[in-house]
Each structure stands twice: as C-alpha cells, then as structure tokens.
C-alpha cells in the first residue's frame, strides 16, 4: 500500500518540481523575482473568490478530461473533444431556447440532447476509422475545424439577435428560459456557515461533474463493458480473442467520448451566460486532453489534475501586478504536462522491472532444487 502511494505521488512531485524550476528559470530570464511571483500567486489563490472560481473551472476541465480519458483508456485518441462540445453547445442552446418545459425536465432534456449531438459528431470519426481505417487523431482534429465552420455559418446566418440599438446583429442563440438555468450551490453551502459575496456562485455543475466521475469509475472498473474497454486498450489481441468486437467497441467508445463532451458543453451553457455566442468559452476540449494525460486517465487523478490546472490558470492572473506576463502559466502548464508524462513512464517502467525481478526471484527460489546430499 505504501509502495503504491509512493508510486503514484512520486512522479507528480518530481514533475511539479521540474515545472517549478523551468518556470523560475523563465522568470529569472525575463528579469523577475520568482519568490515574489510565487508569493503573489499563493496569496491570490487564498480568497473565497479564487477558490470558487477554481472549483467552477475545474468542474469543466474535469468533465472534459473524462471525455478524453475514456478514449485514451482504449487507445483511441479523441482530440476532437473541443469541436464536439462546441457544436453540442450551439445546437443544444438553439433547441433549448425553442422549447419550454418545467425546470425538472428542461435541464435533463438539455443534457440528453447535448450528449446525443456530441456523441454523433464523435461517432463520425469512429465510423471513418472503422470503415475506412482513417486515423482518428487526424479525423477528430479535422472535425474540430469543420465544427468551427459549421458553428460560424449557423451563427451568422440563423442564430442572431439584434442588439439594443436595433442596428447591429449579434451572433448568439436566444436566451434560455429560466427553467433551463442550473441552480447554484450557494444556498446549500451557506447552511455550513460560509458566506458568499454578491455574484460569487458555486456552480451546480460541480455536482454533475462529481456524479459523472463516479459513473465513469463504476462503468470502467466494475462493468463488463469497462473491462472490455480497458482490455482493448491494453492488449487488443487478448480483447479480440475474448470476444470483444473491435469495430463496435471503437464506435461505442467514440460515441461515449462525444457524449461526455456534450455534458461538458452544458457546464458553461447552463451555469453562465445561457446563450451560445462569441463569449462562449473555447479551448475547453484541449485543456481536457492535457488534464486527462496529467491525471493518468483515472477519475481521481483527473480531478486532482483539473484542480491544479485551474489553479495555475487562476494564480497567474496575479502575476501581471508583478510585471510578469500571465502567459507564463502556459509554459508552466506545458512543462508540467510533459515532465509528468515522462516521469509516469519512467516510474511505470521501473516498477514493472522491479515486479518482474521479484517474480523471477520467487520463481527461481521455488524451482531451484535443494542441494544434493553428499553420498558417502
């Protein structure tokens, strides 16, 4: 148990150290003081506003990470989470604004529609892979751009409203009814004695994200489907011979990955803004990929990684007061990702070698014959 703990935490620690060193070096190179910067970042994080903002953001990154991770677990690289969630957001926002349902039905309706759209869009890449052998990395990335084009076309030609002056067109979908707005958790948390300033809201989506994480764990590690999924990723031949249909598996997994991207879309849509327009958050899909890699495709790890990623993003906003460009967070994040991935691999290989060595020692000690008796 202790060994497992060290095995899990050591690489992250080393990676964090490496990222910190690289970040400090860059800061020194541009003439800033890393110590002051760190102090500014930590103190900025140490406020209710920051904690809430980080929690909200990390709930989005978490779901995005899960969407990517379910593909990674199978050896399928769904880099198209970004396009899938954006197109699901647009179409669901447009559809949801046309429909009026009571709140208890409207929100689940939105989720289901988003999951279907996201899943179908991802399914295109899955079908292309199965039927034509198209590499899913390239096809999902191409579909990202296709999604951008479709969204731009629809926004400019169909989904627009006039602004206050009545002259200009603003490309965005109609505002969703209040029944589709996801409630926040402020009331619930205030019962525990916390007090929130005006405008600071803990998104209800946090609970959805947690639920999705639990479902992810249960499905992947406690169901037959999840077992088949993991095996297809670890050893496709073994999976095949145990009866898993690889084509069906690929299409199903891509669909689920896209459906999770649809769930992701509902985070920003139902919690903030309530329209799809120019202001809708972008790049969430790519963050999810990074977070999934950082979290080793495990729901607990991804949760941790999502919080770290969001914290780095938030904390670097404090750096502009120190004269450091906030963009340095990207270098920190990138270095953290690469060094984490490297250290995971090294630790993995070391532990595998150690296990093999132990197993062979055990085997040889059992199989070695006892010393022969000297016959006098």
């Amino acid at each position: 148990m202790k060994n497992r703990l060290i095995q899990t935490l050591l690489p992250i620690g080393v990676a964090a150290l490496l990222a910190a060193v690289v970040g400090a070096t860059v800061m020194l190179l541009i003439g800033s003081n890393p110590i002051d910067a760190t102090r500014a970042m930590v103190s900025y994080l140490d406020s209710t506003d920051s904690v809430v903002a980080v929690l909200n953001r990390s709930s989005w990154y978490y779901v995005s990470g899960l969407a990517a991770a379910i593909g990674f677990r199978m050896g399928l690289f769904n880099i198209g989470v970004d396009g899938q969630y954006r197109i699901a957001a647009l179409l669901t926002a447009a559809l949801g604004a046309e429909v009026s349902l009571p709140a208890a039905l409207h929100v689940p309706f939105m989720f289901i529609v988003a999951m279907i759209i996201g899943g179908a869009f991802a399914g295109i890449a899955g079908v292309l892979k199965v039927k034509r052998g198209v590499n899913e990395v390239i096809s999902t990335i191409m579909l990202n751009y296709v999604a951008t084009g479709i969204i731009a076309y629809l926004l400019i030609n169909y989904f627009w409203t006039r602004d206050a002056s009545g002259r200009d067109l603003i490309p965005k979908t109609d505002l969703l009814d209040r029944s589709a707005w996801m409630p926040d958790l402020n009331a619930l948390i205030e019962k525990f004695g916390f007090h929130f300033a005006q405008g600071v809201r803990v998104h209800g989506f946090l609970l959805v994200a947690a639920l999705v994480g639990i479902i992810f764990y249960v499905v992947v590690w406690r169901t037959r489907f999840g077992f088949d999924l993991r095996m297809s990723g670890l050893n496709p031949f073994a999976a095949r011979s145990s009866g898993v249909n690889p084509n069906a598996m690929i299409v199903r997994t891509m669909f689920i990955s896209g459906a999770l991207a649809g769930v992701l879309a509902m985070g920003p849509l139902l919690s903030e803004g309530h329209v799809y327009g120019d202001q809708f958050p972008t790049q969430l899909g790519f963050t999810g990929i990074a977070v999934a890699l950082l979290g080793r495709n495990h729901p607990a790890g991804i949760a941790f990684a999502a919080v770290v990623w969001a914290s780095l993003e938030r904390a670097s906003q404090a750096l502009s007061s120190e004269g450091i460009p906030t963009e340095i967070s990207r270098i920190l994040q990138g270095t953290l990702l690469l060094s984490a991935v490297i250290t995971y691999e090294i630790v993995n290989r070391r532990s595998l070698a150690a296990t093999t060595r132990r197993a062979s020692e055990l085997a040889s000690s059992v199989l070695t014959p006892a010393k022969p008796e000297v016959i006098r």
Partner: protein
Amino acid sequence: MTAVAVPPADSADLPRAWWATRRNRLIVIAIVCWVAVSLVRVLLDADDLTSSTAFRAAIRTGIPVFLAGMGGLFAERCGVVNIGLEGMMILGTWFAGFAGWHWGPWVGVLFGVIGGVLGGLLHALATVTFGIDHIVSGVALNIIAAGTTRFLADQFFTGQIGGSISQSPPVKGSIHEQSLPFLSGGELFGWRSPNPLQWLEFKHWFLISDTAGLLNGLTSRHNWLTILAVVIIPIATYVLWRTPFGLRLRSAGERPSAADSLGVDVYRIRYSALAISGGLAGLGGSYLAINGAGRYSEGQVSGRGFIGLAMLIFGNWRPVGIAIGSTLYGFIEGVRLCCSGQTIVALVLLVSLALAALAITQLLRRNWPAFVGTLFVSGLFATYYIVGKATDSADKEFTVPREFTYMAPYVLTLLFLAFASQRLRPPAAAGKLWRKGDTG
C-alpha cells in the same frame, strides 16, 4: 546430339500492351482528368480555374503542407509517429517571424528551421530516450509549442511597432521572385523576356490555354524558397533510398531490432531523423510566415501540420506521393483563396465529377459499399451545386459561403484519407515503442 537448353522466355522480353503498366495507366488517367477540367472550365466559363494565378496559388498553398508531410515522412520512416508537426510548424513560424523582423527573410528561414529542429529534438527526447507513447508526446508538444510561442510573442512583440501578442512586426524585406525566361516572362540579365505562355493562356482556347496556364503558373513568379522546397523532393528521395544513412533510417523504422543487431544505433538515427523532421516542419512554418503573411501571426498554421500528416498517408509514405497529394490539396485551397466566387462554384462541380469518377472505379472493382459511399458524397456536392445554381438570380449570384470554404481544407483532408488507396504500406515499426534489447 546434345540438347541445347533454351532459356525460358523472360517476361520482360514479351511485348506488353501499353496500358498494362501502372505508370502508363496513371498517365492516361491524368490526361483524361485534365481534359475534363478543361471542359468544365469552358462550359462554366470559369476562366480563373486554370489560370496561372490558380496554379501559382496551388504551389504556394501546397508547399507548407508538403513540407509538413516530408517532416512526417522522415519521422515515420524511422519508426516514430510525429503528431507534433503542428507544434513544430508553429515554432517555425514564430522563429521565422522573429528573425525575419530583425535580420531579413533568409535569416528568418534559417531560424524557423532551427525552431522546428528544437521541437523535433524535444519529441525525440520524450519518445526515444524516455519511451513515451508517440501520440501522447506529440499532443503534449503541440500544447507546449502553442503556449510557448504565445508567451514569447508577448515578451518580444508587444510594444513593438506592428507587433502584438498575436503577430510579429513585419519581416524585413522579402525574397526575390523568379520566372522562367523565354517562356514565362522571366528576366535575363536585366532584359525582360516575352511571356508566350501567358499570351496563350489569355486566349481561353480549350485545352491549349489551360495547359499554358498550368505551365505558366508553375514557372513564373516563384521565389527561391519555393524552388528550394520543390528541390527537396529529389534530395529526400536520394537521401532515403540511395545513401547508407537513409537505409539505416528506414531499417530503424521497419525492424529496429534487426537494425540494432547489425550495429545501427537506432536511438541516434531516430534523433537525427526527428531533427530533420522538425527542421522540415519548421521550414514549412517559415514558408508560411515569410512567403505567406510576411510575419508571424497567431493561428497561421491552423491545422496544416495535421493535413501534412494526412498527405503522408495519402502519398503512401513516399516523397512523390506526398507531393502529388499536396499539389491536389494546394490547387483546391489555392483556388478558394485566390479566385472569385464563381470559380469556387466551378470547383464544387469539379469535385463532384471527380468523386463520381472515383465511384465508377470502385464499381469496376466490384466494391459495392465503397461505390455507394463515394457516389453518395459525389451526389452531395452535385446537389449543392444544382440547388445553388437554381437560386442564381440577376442580382444575387450563387456563391459558396465563406464559412463553408473555410472548412474546405479540412473536409478535403477527410475525403483524401477516406478514399486513400487500400494498398497503403506504412513503415512496419512506426508508432511502436522500442527499447534497446527489444526483439521485433
């Protein structure tokens, strides 16, 4: 009397029908396609379709993708999948913009290549030394490259005249253009030669003018960087298939353990190959920055690294194949960028016809599902064209909306990959993790 042994007739001695060889068949197909293009041009009165402007744009648009594909070639031929080509191109654009702004275009090109090489070496460190999954490393590299260039742009370009976080100040000067003398109006020792090809082209005669336009577009107003990029085709072919280095490289990509047993330092060869790969991608980025926008601009690359990878697959991991694919892609993209809306409409019809022809070849091969699928996609394009033309009215001509043409390169790449020949033969060990001492 001894029997005289009669040697068996060698198949090379037998007279063969001219259509029997694959190469002759491809030539015939190319000629038929060219006549069809010319026909479409005449019928639709879309003169720009085969103008020298279009072909010049085809070359200029196709080269970055071609260079990315060549970068992918060197990497995959040695066994490492390079998804990070996009990131290396981005690094190339930034370094080219930075150095070009300070010291001029050719220094910019050099720095762009160096930037790409750095990316390639990082990818090599991760995949070869540390043995990370190639795709994971590539994805991480793309994220790092995008973030780093944004940070560096913020550091070096904001506050400068013409610079900001998303673009560099303009490159100092540009590379001189050349044209072929005597045929395409090139200059020879200060004397401007006539341009007979262009004269032919402007006559708009069926087939003759189209061919003149093609030749003129290929040989006029190209700068040395373009010529350098084209020369890479024979150089790369020579290096990979006629030098010991190339042989070792390819063996590392087919059977690394066999190469290792013969004394090839697989790790070192992969490092070299990935450096070359990154350099080529960086050159592609330099081309975009210096020949395209004339500066570094955020989002300049926008997927071309991945399209290059698709060209690699389409070209069956051969330089000439990559070049053909990139030229086809460049033609369609180039027309979209340079020519009027009517030409793009003609292009839609052309694509539909090409797909229909592809469908017929699938029918001849008795491949029913492929036939139906290709015919369906061809029908989609044809329907779009017909419906659009029907809405043509005096005051509002039918044009393809800008958002759709934006999607064109990406949809095109998907089509390329979906209809790529089934006889693809990637290097056997591409993507497989190999450590010293492994077998296979």
